[in-house]
């Protein structure tokens, strides 16, 4: 049995004061000095921590917002001097898609590398747009993984990238058909390049160290080679190359062939001659997996299917960073585009032989599982790993502007540790979902919509029989 995949983690505390959801407003001037102060009774000791924080204030622009929101002190203060408030800075985090909740949970996971756990029931909307319009299934009684989560049986999250032959041909006992190289990564996750909206300081050294530690793949713009490695990393360049997939930017100088040969995968942008470039690369670097990056714009889905028809092995379909179809007035969401590509590839009989990587809008670990259920083999993501470094997604990361989260000046161990922790937390949560589904192989999640429940479908199938047709939005 192969060694069980494991990511060793240690907590990596934040550099900056936390931007919590709640804070206590305290009107000290009316205090009765009752000597029975509820602040002393705070179960979480937050009031004392706040005092200590204010005494040694390092950041005058950060207030203390670590209240847990239990209202205990508010309700017991003898003079009603305390009030709980929602931190406006918290509410301003992110955007409509990358909500404050997503950003906060990402910070927590990057710090602890653990699965976020809380009490009471679910607090959110019944359903929403995009990935929030689907639920994953669970297996009630018959469940092959048994106690997989708790270590008795192995749940494999490995997936393959590359062409898988439909069948093998033998002659005189020997395989005569072509057996293309397949790339195996332990989690269905690739760290992508930064979206153009986020032109950031150099995060590649952290990313490449984190992917080396976790044995996944990072896509690196070839214009950044070799600066994507720091001085120390460059001395051990060979250790990093297997986890790098160069995005071969046609405007950049060519990556040396001896470097490419030590990688396992490259990516080329879609173009009219994409398939020719792919063939040339395969010839120059035998065995390398070549992915074609297809922007999921109005033509994206058709183009992805056409490329497969013409012989492409790996398609990396990328929506915008909010998961939407690019430059379309009423955009489809990434999950719907994946489903369409997947279904059309099934109909053409090519699905089992090719790899579909889906990127854009992958913000949470459940998105990874849901994208797979919709038909992707692997997902790509970038922003969560930037958020892991305490980015607030203010979108102000332009040249010349200073980053409010100070990303220009982060330490190496901090940056790598936070990214590694986040990858570990995502891995653990993927296992949680797979365990509940009774799935022991991530490969089998691909396109298994029977393990998913879609909001529109549930409404139509169940409520439709009771309440008729659904109103048009």
């Amino acid at each position, binding site marked *: 049995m192969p060694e069980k995949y494991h990511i060793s983690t240690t907590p990596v505390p934040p550099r900056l004061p936390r931007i919590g959801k709640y804070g206590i407003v305290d009107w000290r001037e009316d205090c009765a000095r009752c000597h029975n102060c509820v602040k002393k009774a705070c*179960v979480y000791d937050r009031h004392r921590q706040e005092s200590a924080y204010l005494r040694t204030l390092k950041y005058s622009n950060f207030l203390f917002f670590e209240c847990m929101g239990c209202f205990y002190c508010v309700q017991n203060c003898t*003079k009603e001097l305390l009030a709980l408030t929602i931190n406006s800075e918290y509410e301003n985090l992110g955007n409509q898609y990358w909500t404050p909740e997503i950003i906060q949970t990402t910070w927590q996971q990057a710090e602890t590398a653990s699965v976020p756990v809380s009490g009471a029931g679910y607090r959110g909307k019944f359903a929403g747009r995009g990935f929030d319009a689907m639920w994953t299934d669970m297996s009630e009684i018959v469940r092959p993984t048994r106690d997989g989560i708790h270590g008795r049986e192995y749940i494999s999250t490995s997936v393959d990238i590359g062409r898988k032959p439909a069948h093998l041909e033998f002659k005189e006992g020997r395989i005569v058909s072509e057996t293309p190289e397949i790339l195996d990564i332990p989690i269905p996750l690739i760290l992508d390049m930064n979206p153009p909206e986020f032109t950031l300081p150099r995060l590649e050294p952290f990313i490449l160290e984190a992917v080396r530690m976790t044995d996944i793949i990072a896509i690196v713009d070839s214009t950044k080679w070799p600066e994507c490695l720091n001085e120390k990393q460059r001395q051990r360049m060979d250790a990093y190359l297997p986890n790098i997939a160069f995005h071969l930017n046609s405007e950049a100088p060519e990556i040396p062939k001896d470097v490419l040969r030590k990688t396992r995968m490259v990516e080329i942008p879609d173009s009219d001659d994409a398939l020719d470039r792919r063939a040339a690369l395969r010839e120059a670097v035998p065995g390398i997996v070549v992915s074609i990056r297809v922007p999921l714009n109005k033509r994206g889905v058709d183009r992805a299917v056409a490329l497969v028809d013409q012989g492409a092995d790996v398609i990396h379909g990328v929506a915008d960073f909010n998961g939407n179809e690019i430059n379309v007035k009423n955009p489809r969401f990434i999950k719907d585009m994946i489903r369409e590509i997947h279904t059309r590839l099934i109909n053409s009989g090519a699905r089992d032989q090719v790899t579909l990587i889906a990127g854009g809008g992958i913000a949470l670990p459940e998105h990874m599982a849901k994208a797979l259920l919709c038909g992707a083999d692997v997902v790509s993501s970038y922003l969560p790993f930037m958020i892991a470094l305490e980015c607030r997604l203010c979108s102000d990361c332009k040249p010349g502007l200073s980053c409010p989260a100070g990303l220009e000046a982060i330490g190496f161990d901090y940056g790598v540790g936070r990214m590694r922790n986040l990858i570990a937390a995502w891995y653990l949560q993927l296992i949680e979902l797979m365990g509940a589904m009774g799935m022991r192989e991530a490969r089998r999640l691909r396109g298994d919509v029977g393990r998913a429940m879609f909001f529109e479908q549930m409404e139509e199938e169940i409520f439709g029989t009771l309440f008729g047709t659904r109103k048009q939005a």
Partner: protein
Amino acid sequence: MEHFSAPENRLNDMGAVLPANTVRTMVPQVDVCREIAPAPPRYRNEFAKYVIFRSDACVHCGHCAELCPHHVHVRKPGYTLFAMPKSYLCTGKSCEKTGYYCIDQCPQHALRMVENPMIRALGDYRWPADMLLGTWKMAETGEPPAEEYELNYQTGNSGGGFDRLRFRFPEKPPAGLSDDEIDTSIILNRRDDGRPKIAIDVPWYGGGMSFGSVSNITQLSKARAAVAWNTFSCTGEGGYMERMRPYDGHMITQVATGLFGVREETIQRVPIVEFKYAQGAKPGLGGHLLGDKNTPAVAKIREAVVGISLFSPFPFHSVYSIEDHMKHLDWIKHINRRALVSTKVSTPTDVDMVAVGSFSAGTHIIHLDGGYGGTGAAPDIAKKNIAMPIEYAIAKVHKFLVDEGARDKVALIASGGVRTAHDIAKAIALGADGVVVGTAELVALGCVRCSRCSAGRGCPRGIATTDPELVTQMDLEWGTQRIINLYSAWRKDLIGILKRFGMRSVRELVGRSDLLMHLDFNNDAGVNKTDGPAKSQNASAKGKGRKPKKANTEQKP
């Protein structure tokens, strides 16, 4: 004060109709009076939708106190100054139209009223502030909140499920039906198998919460309220506290995968045994008591080591099939010859198949726990994403059981996001016989849903904790009364709904989805096709339901 006489056929007296060799509780049973009594909030500063401020201009003339019928302004005997206004009793803006609006009537203009800005920080989409405030009000008074409080406590803001369903009340409610004539009881054993036909007086019972996940005061308050209302509470999977034994007749012993506290005697002493296959908040993941909550007392009752996390691994190691499930049920039925068996499952895609399989294995109660159910601790990823919401599951299972001809032989009980009497009624109209409630009981005890049940020492409010210091915040009598009051208010709300439909029994409402409308649908489905068992139940009820003539929605969209 309100007093209900205890039903004649109390569960405690059930021994008379049971086989002679049946083992049952040997502990004297305690009765709890079903009496509605005020149970004021236990905090000095209760939450208020509107806050009244008294300025220094006040001359303490007492005019406001004389005017206010809600006793917002109080001057304690022997004091010359007024205490701070009890804002939570204030009806707020609706008072402006009355002649006793203190803000206008104060001769010194010393009072002002503002909307409480803190309300924004209270609650969430599923339990918005109004629903929390309404539930607290019910737990305090035993009555549904008065209309003048303008609390929308009947629906949440989740944007789907129960929150988008409304009743289609007839424009003119059928006249001549008094509250006393309306029966809210349901029968939990619908099989003719010689086991007791246990009836509960309200169509709900308390959900399983283990000692460890909640305090023993919380557990006992739930149990005592169950006695008062002739319904049930459940041990959860944490063992059976000795202090619960006086309430054996109203307890459900839960058998879950960790088998904590499961012994012959804990199965034999109760009228219902529940097999928990899965929990809605963490379907397919099993239970998890964090190490911090595994105190010496918890460890003792669970026969475990102090301080370590305790897992109830999913699923049962002995069950791979419906046949294995049947063996489970047979095991319990053999050990306790008078017990009903409930099967608690979550809501996978094939929940209908699971339900019918469980029925064929011999369960008396199919308990569906939907994806948005409560928990002491669960991975956030599970709470949000795994399994279908209960609203879908009820309708799906009900229809399937009808089609299979099994619906009137099994009790269908739903849980997982049932928060109010209106949710209960909607669940029943979708096809359930009754529901299981949990979070609402904790809210009645003062829970604010801060979700920190699992953090550190546990609930700061002493509800979901075993911390020796924190648990002392709550008194058993108070806790019992709060839940008794909540049940009373719910029953009144439920009777109000049934009365508007002219129904004499809650059983007439089962499967009557034609009485519901969905705000996101055109509601043009025509004749409801899934009301088979409702008809059969109607036949057994005292009077026939009167169909509404025209839709009159309960609330504006």
